[in-house]
């Protein structure tokens, strides 16, 4: 199966689901070609609203559509859409509107465009809002399942997709289960890596590499960051020697923080390594260069985990 960007899988899924869910509508803020909401727009032009470069208004409009019974997917780059935090906070989350906020171009892997286009704080922002679910699929199958689920989900949700292609990590016939961690690679006597989105395939690569160094490392795919699958986090953490998190996002407020909170509250005294952007901005470069520089590719995760486990 060729690698596929989750934004592509998103656009295709939305267009496919439009027939089955007549209330499904989409909005974009002049980035429909990039977020791939265009795929839906071409098939359902009457149910697509081009809002221009005005994300605040797009979010509010999506809230109104939802409050009147529609299922709107409001799309833009992760950084821009979640940057309109107050609109999401009041018009969407507080109103408990069935809005799906879709942030594409997640993380540093966006590449050449540089930090201003890289969503690196979006999960942190969305996770802090009551009512808001946060989903980040790891491959095309999971994206399709997540989008289908979001047509049925009650309440607001944030979906984070990637610009870069991702190798498939789930088996054919995979069924997305909201709020459930997927144990992709069991084991983990030495460590378990909780990874999300584009980092899941890299975590798998890292685990394979660490195995060559004699380390037993498991991988858990956290596609639903909120609500977090707390029982699974605790169970896997208990069974592992140490805990690693991996995300293409700031370690402050993202998956790393979510896992740390759960471990600390449960009193599980396991060491924790949070892999991600360490309180720093992104920059320009190719996707590969940036993932290498910030140690977010398979090699980078393996190196950091190896150092951590050896210490």
């Amino acid at each position, binding site marked *: 199966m060729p690698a596929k960007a989750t934004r592509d899988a998103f656009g295709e899924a939305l267009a496919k689901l439009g027939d089955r869910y007549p209330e499904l509508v989409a909005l974009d803020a002049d980035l429909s070609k990039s977020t791939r909401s265009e795929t839906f727009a071409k098939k359902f032009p009457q149910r697509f609203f081009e809002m221009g470069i005005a994300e605040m208004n797009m979010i509010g409009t999506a809230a109104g559509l*939802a409050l*009147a019974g529609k299922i709107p997917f409001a799309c833009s780059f992760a950084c821009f859409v979640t940057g309109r935090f107050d609109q999401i906070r009041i018009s969407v989350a507080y109103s408990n509107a069935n809005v799906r906020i879709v942030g594409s171009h997640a993380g540093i892997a966006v590449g050449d465009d540089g930090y201003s286009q890289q969503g690196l704080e979006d999960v942190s922002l969305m996770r802090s809002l009551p009512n808001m679910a946060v989903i980040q699929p790891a491959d095309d199958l999971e994206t399709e399942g997540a989008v289908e689920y979001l047509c049925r989900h009650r309440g607001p949700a944030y979906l984070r997709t990637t610009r870069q292609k991702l190798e498939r990590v789930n088996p054919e016939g995979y069924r997305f289960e909201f709020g459930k961690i997927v144990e992709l690679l069991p084991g983990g006597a030495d460590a378990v890596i909780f990874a999300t989105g584009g980092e899941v395939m890299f975590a798998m690569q890292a685990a394979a590499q660490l195995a060559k160094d004699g380390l037993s490392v498991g991988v858990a795919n956290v596609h639903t960051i909120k609500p977090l699958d707390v029982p699974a986090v605790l169970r896997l953490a208990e069974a592992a020697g140490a805990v690693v998190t991996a995300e293409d996002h700031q370690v402050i407020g993202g998956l790393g923080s979510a896992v740390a909170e759960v471990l600390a509250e449960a009193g599980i005294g396991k060491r924790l390594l949070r892999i991600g952007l360490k309180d720093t901005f992104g920059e320009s470069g190719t996707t590969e260069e940036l993932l290498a520089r910030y140690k977010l590719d398979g090699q980078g995760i393996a190196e950091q985990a190896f150092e951590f486990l050896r210490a």
Partner: protein
Amino acid sequence: MATALSTSSAPGAEVARLQEIAGRLRLDIIEMLHQAGSGHPGGSLSAIDIVTCLFFSRMRHDPRRPTWPERDRFVLSKGHAVPALYAAMAQAGYFPREELKTLRRLGSRLQGHPVASALPGIEACTGSLGQGLSVAQGMALASKLDGGKFHVYCMVGDGECQEGQIWEAAMSAPKFQLDNLTLFLDYNKGQIDGPVPQVMDLEPLADKWRAFRWNVIEAPGHDFQALLAAHDEARATRGRPTVIIAHTVKGKGVSFMEHQIAWHGMAPNKEQTQKALAELTRGANGKGA
């Protein structure tokens, strides 16, 4: 409809009826704010006549069925004026009038700013200014998708028009030809830090909305006949949304509150409340205001 009352009654009688209702609602606003000990009388009193026109004459709604899909929507974007909305809703029968006393109290459905999930009949959470017009636009789009079964009303404040999001929505609503969206702009010319022209002038305000391709109507905001006429002209307009710029008086109906910025966000004490109620009662009996 339970409260969409006959519009065929003689204009004079209709105006007198609405005046009488608005007078009672003003009493409720003052009492409610006094009980609460905080809140916003100025903008509630400037808005109440418009709210009265909608809830007791022109809006198609049914307080017994607050989730009726075909009801007209009213989004109070200037959420701090919610005492005006609560007073109208209680009078219309959405909830017991007794509950007005719970405004701003712990556990009350009558939150300090409107909360959709708390109280049936509140259409959206507002209170962070600038957001309600976009929400109303989304509802109007949904109505259009479903064959145009309901109309959407929104009210914004004048100071609120300093928010950039208002102008994003101003740009988009004509694009979508939302003739099922009517905006009331409560132009009471005062905001917390002072008179609107001093804080951040909006003029030429009507020209701005015209430039954004809205149908613009200016009306005296406490003249029921003019408000009803403006409303009906808005509803008859096709192909674009209407903004009714209602020239209002902050604190309207209570002499010592009128035009006084200090009454933007301050509740009356016992003595002030008695004075206000006495004035309003005289007004309601046709001897003043």
